[in-house]
């Protein structure tokens, strides 16, 4: 069976930002196969120079609309590192809680709105409303819960404003936390429903394994999104966050406006599957059971399973949030007024975005104005790996009809939950 | 009318019992400031507050309120008919409410305001701590001589509770077995009032309030309007925080079916640029100075000409609310009193 395949997906849909897939092959011979990122670069690292440490979070949150909380945290952690600021345990817990809202919002959006249509054979979520109303209802409920939770703790639905160096601009009330706990308990059944749906669709996920290096934050005490050092499936050692440049090794590729990354191999992957592969034994009971039910096992290297890992993480988030809220309520919320004296220095911060580990680094002058910035975005870290996946996958499927190849490639890209708009913020690797 | 004397625990029990019966909005701490908010337990009540961020008028004329609903059956009135208690209103704010009562009842009565007002029981509380900008003492509003439904006055650790209306007496039923205030207590209360008249003068008005209209009458072209208003942001803060400002805007929005919807009224302010703008683009008070002057005239003269009451109760909120620090009525009136230049 010989055919000429010419696929050019100009601006793949149902992802954040612009990406292209190019495949040209004849008689099973691949002539060109590229994952391209033509998104307009926005130069955040250059723009923030001269801006006060007080305004950095406001600016860099705008790198990405869908992981704005994560960007804010990476920046705030880097600023606090640079200025030697310690935050209270209460602030730390509240931040985790706020951070989780974004994971829930983003994961449910990704799995429910962007990926589910592929698995249910629809072109978008709109026809799903007719064909699978219950699924859509569940997804909307999860998504809305994440959003309202984010708005309450972050002050806004997107681009949070409560996150300041040293603490929170305003605290929630204890009543709110009690209510939030109830709300979160209320979505556990919905997550079960979602897991059932995913379970029933799992057979539709392509069986494609490629041995991959996975990288994520690792903290000995819990399944980490916010704390810890940099772990890899290729090594037992944790690399401290301030040395992140030695992990990501960014380089410019001609086929993309986004930089590419590599560590022990020629590419690595970050995201829910990476976190799972590095932290699976720390999952709380319900999440662990969900993973088991969905057949997700540590060491999985099928990129399509990233979506399954996201569902597991949603469950993990609810369990851990409830624990955190209980802990906060037992101690009682204490009013805090963060006051920060700027000082000269440099610092780095890392947190897990829904789509993988995110690094920020800043240097400040005496007045607290930024002189240098560097952000390394998870989607960038995945670009090279997507290309490697393509190269491994296409020979296996090259005989299939063109439409199917196209769909499988699009699905692969979507599985990574790429956030391309935020990935095109390049940095100068040399840091002063 | 009865005057009871109750201790702090009785007060707390009383308030808690009220909370069980109807909506109670009481003065509470909000960060390092105070605000009226739904009261869930008496222990939260802070009768020692200095000033509430938002004037309690907000419970009678809410910032945004539905007037009408419309749909297939045409327009229908929407009225708020649930009883509630405003607990701990300061005398100057109570005067503000009494002035609003006049405005909304006169001429063609506004049943949206009046219905809500009829549901309200006003528990007034004499000021215990003066706020940084209050000048009610100069405006004769430091003490509420008459009006309101109940008046609370703190006497050492106890409170005197005076029923001032049938509604107030009804609210005080639960206190029937409490002792009546004695002559000495009433004497003490008079001292509190005299003290408050002196205390609530953080800014000293050099003219008598009743002389303001005549003074303003001569000051239309005074340079102060231009000078001060140069820094005005036209932000309307001085209007919106004012317990006697009641101007409103009306807007309409539909639901997704485009058939059903609501007509709502929202707070508005004469300091906002477009307040006097008409279709076709003509603005009858285009200049900042014109709008700035209008506010003082409305407070000190126009409304006085109508109701014989100065529409400034000396709460001092506008002084604090104005970022440009130009909204202090005492400063302006004193300046006018000095004569031109």
């Amino acid at each position, binding site marked *: 069976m010989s055919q000429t395949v010419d696929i050019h997906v100009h601006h793949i849909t149902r992802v954040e930002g612009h990406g292209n897939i190019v495949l040209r092959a004849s008689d099973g011979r691949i002539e060109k196969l590229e994952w391209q990122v033509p998104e307009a670069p926005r130069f955040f690292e250059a723009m923030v120079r001269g801006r006060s440490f007080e305004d950095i979070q406001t600016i860099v949150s705008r790198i990405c609309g869908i992981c704005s909380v994560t960007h804010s945290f990476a920046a705030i952690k880097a600023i606090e590192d640079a200025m030697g600021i310690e935050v209270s345990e209460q602030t730390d817990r509240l931040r985790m809680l706020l951070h989780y809202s974004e994971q829930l919002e983003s994961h449910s959006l990704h799995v429910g709105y962007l990926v589910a249509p592929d698995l249910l054979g629809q072109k978008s979520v709109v026809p799903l409303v007719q064909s699978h109303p219950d699924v859509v209802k569940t997804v909307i409920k999860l998504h809305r819960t994440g959003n309202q939770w984010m708005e309450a703790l972050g002050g806004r639905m997107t681009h949070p404003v409560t996150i300041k160096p040293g603490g929170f601009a305003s605290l929630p009330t204890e009543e709110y936390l009690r209510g939030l706990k109830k709300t979160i308990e209320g979505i556990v059944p919905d997550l079960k429903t979602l897991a059932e749906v995913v379970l029933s669709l799992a057979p539709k996920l392509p069986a494609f394994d490629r041995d991959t290096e996975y990288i994520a934050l690792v903290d000995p005490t819990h399944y980490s999104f916010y704390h810890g050092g940099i772990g890899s499936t290729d090594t037992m050692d944790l690399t401290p966050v301030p040395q992140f440049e030695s992990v990501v090794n960014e380089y410019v590729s001609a086929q993309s406006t986004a930089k590419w990354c590599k560590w022990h191999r020629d590419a690595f992957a970050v995201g829910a599957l990476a976190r799972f592969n590095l932290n699976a034994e720390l999952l709380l009971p319900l999440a662990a059971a969900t993973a088991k039910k969905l057949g997700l096992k540590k060491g999985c290297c099928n990129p399509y399973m990233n979506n399954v890992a996201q569902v597991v993480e949603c469950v993990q988030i609810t369990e851990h949030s409830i624990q955190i809220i209980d802990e906060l309520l037992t101690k009682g919320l204490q009013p805090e007024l963060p006051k920060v004296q700027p000082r000269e220095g440099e610092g780095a911060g890392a947190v897990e975005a829904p789509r993988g580990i995110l690094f920020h680094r800043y240097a400040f002058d005496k007045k607290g104005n930024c002189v240098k910035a560097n952000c390394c975005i998870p989607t960038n870290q995945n670009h090279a790996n997507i290309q490697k996946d393509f190269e491994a996958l296409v020979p296996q499927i090259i005989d299939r009809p063109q439409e199917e190849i196209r769909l499988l490639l699009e699905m692969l890209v979507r599985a990574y939950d790429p956030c391309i708009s935020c990935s095109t913020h390049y940095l100068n690797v040399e840091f002063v | 009318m009865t005057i009871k004397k109750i201790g702090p625990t009785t007060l707390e029990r009383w308030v808690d019992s009220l909370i069980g019966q109807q909506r109670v909005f009481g003065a509470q701490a909000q960060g390092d400031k105070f605000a009226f908010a739904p009261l869930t337990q008496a222990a939260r009540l802070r009768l020692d507050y200095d000033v509430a961020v938002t004037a309690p008028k907000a419970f009678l004329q809410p910032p945004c309120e539905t007037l009408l609903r419309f749909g297939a059956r045409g*327009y*229908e009135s929407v009225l708020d*008919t649930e009883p509630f208690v405003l607990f701990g209103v300061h005398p100057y704010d109570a005067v503000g409410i009494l002035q609003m009562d006049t*405005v909304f009842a006169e001429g063609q009565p506004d*049943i*949206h305001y009046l219905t809500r007002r009829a549901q309200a029981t006003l528990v007034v509380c004499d000021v215990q701590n003066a706020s940084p900008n209050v000048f009610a003492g100069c405006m004769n509003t430091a003490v509420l001589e008459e009006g309101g439904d109940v008046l609370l006055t703190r006497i050492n650790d106890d409170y005197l509770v005076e029923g001032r209306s049938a509604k107030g007496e009804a609210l005080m039923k639960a206190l029937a077995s409490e002792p009546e205030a004695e002559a000495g207590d009433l004497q003490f209360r008079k001292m509190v009032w005299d003290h408050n008249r002196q205390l609530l003068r953080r800014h000293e008005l050099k003219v008598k309030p009743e002389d303001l209209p005549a003074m303003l009458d001569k000051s239309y072209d005074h340079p102060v309007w231009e000078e001060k208003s140069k820094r005005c942001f036209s932000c309307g803060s001085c209007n919106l925080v004012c317990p006697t400002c009641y101007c*409103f805007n009306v807007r309409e929005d539909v639901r997704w079916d485009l058939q059903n919807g609501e007509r709502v009224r929202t707070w508005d302010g004469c300091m906002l640029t477009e307040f006097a703008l008409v279709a076709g683009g*003509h603005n009858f*008070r285009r200049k900042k100075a014109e709008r700035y002057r209008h506010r003082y005239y409305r407070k000190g003269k126009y409304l006085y000409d109508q109701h014989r009451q100065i529409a400034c109760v000396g709460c001092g909120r506008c002084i604090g609310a104005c970022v440009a620090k130009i909204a202090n009525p005492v400063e302006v009136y004193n300046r006018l009193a000095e004569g031109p230049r």
Partner: protein
Amino acid sequence: MIQSKPAMEGKDIYLPEPAKLLKVEPLTRQEAFFEFTLLSGRDLGHLPGQFVELSVPGIGEAPISVSSSPTVRGYFEMVIRRAGNVTTALHRMEPGSILGVRGPFGTHFPVDTVMKGKDVLFICGGIGLVPVRSAIQYVLHHRADYGRVMIVIGTKTPADRLFAEEMEKWRKHKQVTLLETVDRRDETWTGAEGVITRLLPLVQVDPPKTIAVICGPPIMYKFVVVELIKMKVPDESIFLSFERHMKCGVGKCGHCQINGIYVCQDGPVFNFTDVREVEEAI
């Protein structure tokens, strides 16, 4: 709990009553003529110069003068200029549509008092003719009750003229003097050209016997009043109709205030003596 029911005690001054649109006809590029009737069947009960608040559900409300005389029964007329949301929506309405009406509100031209037995001079600029028309009609319906009737009308261009046919009738009326001008003439226009104040010296008035009624754009008042004073018409014989931004029509919302007075209640028709010292009025 928020209850939805008609006003329990007293009437809701904000609640419009249903009215039916009987007729719409375009007059100029911007203005159209409307005929309404109240669904209840009662007459509006207005006096010349009063206005109502017209509601289009979903769009909003706007104050509009009644343009027909109360002597016309069973329906009332308006002329509406497309100026914004409500007025544009009105222009799109079909006969048979149901709208809301509140009112009538405000003061009126003193057709039954001060004007009785006097010479009347109507001075209208542009759309200012609309409210004054109801007074003109009223006066002509009771022609014997008044002395001379003089109508002075100024319009921007011939294409903007309102009620051209009716004006023709007035022009031909034996007991009416009508003078007209346009700011800018075109080929269709053979009449006078120039601002309205130019016509005033042409009307021969007997000042103590004359009542002047003025309505027009804000800037017209200044010049016309000066002219009338020059002509020795006493201040108390001059009546003006004002227009301001208003939201309630009943003296609450504060928008229409001119210094201390409310256009919706003290106006829209004012005696000049009441506003000559009101700085923001003219």
